[in-house]
């Protein structure tokens, strides 16, 4: 993983504030979860997703390993966005009669089990979207703690501390620390996306999902966010969707390649450590995609 170590080192020099010791994640009541030291993991088992009668994803099984970046790649329409939206139960809020079957385990707890409220799931599985979506009616400060204020009743000091911590973690603090009260939309695209990352981090999620986080950004902003991912995975478990193979090879530890067949639904073709998938793919379709024979 030399590229990643190099990346981390670069990130460390570009953003000195990021060099921090790994922290133990603590849940409510301060108790450590069993996975606190090793990080949180997700496991997708035989997941299928539909929009009404149209099936988008079929029987996918893969792991999102703790404290790694797992990338979902594949051509447009292969269902990777649908798949990642199933991981925090956002699929069910899309219009078009969405439906899901299968299991998604967050640390051995099925988020689709009976009686589990998606609201609770999303508290622990955060998401950053393709197009940055800060709330225009809120200041930068309020944007960061928007979720936190709802799910807990934090004191002002906790809020201040969270805002600084999360903005530092998303490498935005120095750029906005003097204008925290300004509107969230007064920033550039790349800054807005980092604000959205900070907003997700404020919830101390067990897993952070990113749906093509850089596709609406310029190359420099993209680079900054990729460096961010490399730094964040020391503390968080991350899954990203990307249509950019090079990005996957740069940031991801594990990669899953999905492809939509003639029947119109996406299936998992291959999943493994990124280096292996890119240098010695086991499936000929993977090889065809990686070598650019189709996109």
């Amino acid at each position: 993983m030399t590229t990643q170590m190099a990346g981390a080192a670069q990130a460390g020099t570009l953003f000195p504030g990021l060099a921090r010791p790994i922290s133990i994640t603590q849940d409510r009541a301060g108790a450590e979860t069993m996975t606190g030291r090793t990080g949180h993991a997700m496991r997708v088992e035989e997941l299928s997703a539909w929009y009404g009668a149209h099936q988008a994803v079929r029987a996918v099984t893969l792991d999102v390993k703790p404290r790694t970046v797992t990338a979902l790649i594949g051509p447009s329409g292969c269902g990777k966005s649908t798949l990642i939206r199933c991981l925090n139960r956002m699929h069910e809020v899309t219009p078009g009669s969405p439906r899901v079957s299968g299991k998604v385990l967050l640390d051995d707890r099925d988020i689709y089990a009976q009686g589990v409220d998606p609201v609770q799931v999303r508290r622990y599985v955060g998401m950053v979207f393709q197009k940055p979506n800060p709330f225009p009616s809120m200041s930068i400060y309020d944007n960061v703690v928007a979720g936190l204020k709802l799910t807990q009743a934090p004191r002002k000091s906790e809020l201040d501390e969270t805002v600084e911590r999360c903005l530092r973690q998303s490498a935005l603090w120095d750029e906005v620390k003097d204008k925290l009260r300004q509107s969230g939309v007064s920033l550039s695209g790349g800054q807005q996306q980092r604000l959205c990352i900070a907003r997700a981090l404020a919830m101390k999620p067990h897993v952070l999902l990113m749906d093509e986080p850089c596709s609406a950004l310029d190359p420099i902003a993209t680079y900054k966010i990729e460096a961010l991912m490399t730094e964040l995975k020391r503390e968080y478990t991350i899954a990203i969707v990307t249509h950019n193979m090079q990005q996957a090879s740069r940031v991801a530890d594990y990669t899953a390649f999905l492809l939509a067949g003639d029947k119109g639904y996406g299936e998992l073709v291959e999943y493994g450590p990124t280096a292996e998938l890119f240098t010695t793919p086991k499936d000929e379709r993977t090889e065809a995609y990686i070598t650019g024979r189709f996109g």
Partner: protein
Amino acid sequence: MSSQTIAPPVAPAAPAGPPLLDIFAPDSRYTLRRTASNAMAVLIGVCALIAVAVLWLILGYVIIRGVPALNVAFFTERPLPYGEPGGGIGPAILGSLTIMAVAALAGVPLGVGAGIYLSEFGRGRFAWIVRFCGDLVAGLPSIVVGVFVWALLVKEIIGNFAGFAGAAALAIIMIPIILRTVEEVLRLVPHSLREAALALGVPQWKVVMGVVLPSARAGIITGVVLSLARAAGETAPLILTTLGNQFFSWDLKQPMAAIPVQIYNYAVAPYDDWHTKAWGAAFVLIVIIGLLSVLTRLATGGTRRTAL
């Protein structure tokens, strides 16, 4: 087809310590939030229910109280003095139709013409002013329009209450509605259609009259019918201009009956029979407006241009 997956993770060696927290188990704050969310959902549903229920409350009473008044005499006879049984709103129906026809005679050409101007020629400051004034007139309280026509036509020019004045007031109310609809509908006609005709050497006025207008026919009819539906129910301006008439009359220079005015006169009188007739007339009015609305839907083929 082979999917390579790494073997499922072996459960890590559990350190002796606190048991796994069930992170999805609700705490008190979550329960409060969820209850609040559900309560608000119910409240919001109730609001929708109220909004819908009111319609049926009103329509229901109009039907229940109005239908008993309906018979042939109701439609054909004139109102009789109190004490005499029978009678009807015949003059009011005739009057309403007459006044609306005259109003349309003036309002439709002016409204359509103005709409054509704004859509085909309307790019300068003049057009902006016309649009702005159109919106102002559209937003005028109808009683103010009534006072205007009362002061100008009834008090000054004609000298007495007259059907013609009522028609003028209704025309003023109709014009902005037609104007807005026509402009909008004409704008929707694709430019390529105009360009194709112009490229054939057809003069612009023929392009508009012969190509653009016919293709927007449905929308224009909708606008006209919408304005008629609105005009049919206007009462205040008519009270101030035509006053009302107990007798059948074609004479536009004299007071003329109209359905909404008749409703009012019947309703405020102290006689129960007349109250029933008021409900009956209200029923007739609703039916007329309902028919006109159905017509608009038919004209547009049921297609809606806005998001629900």
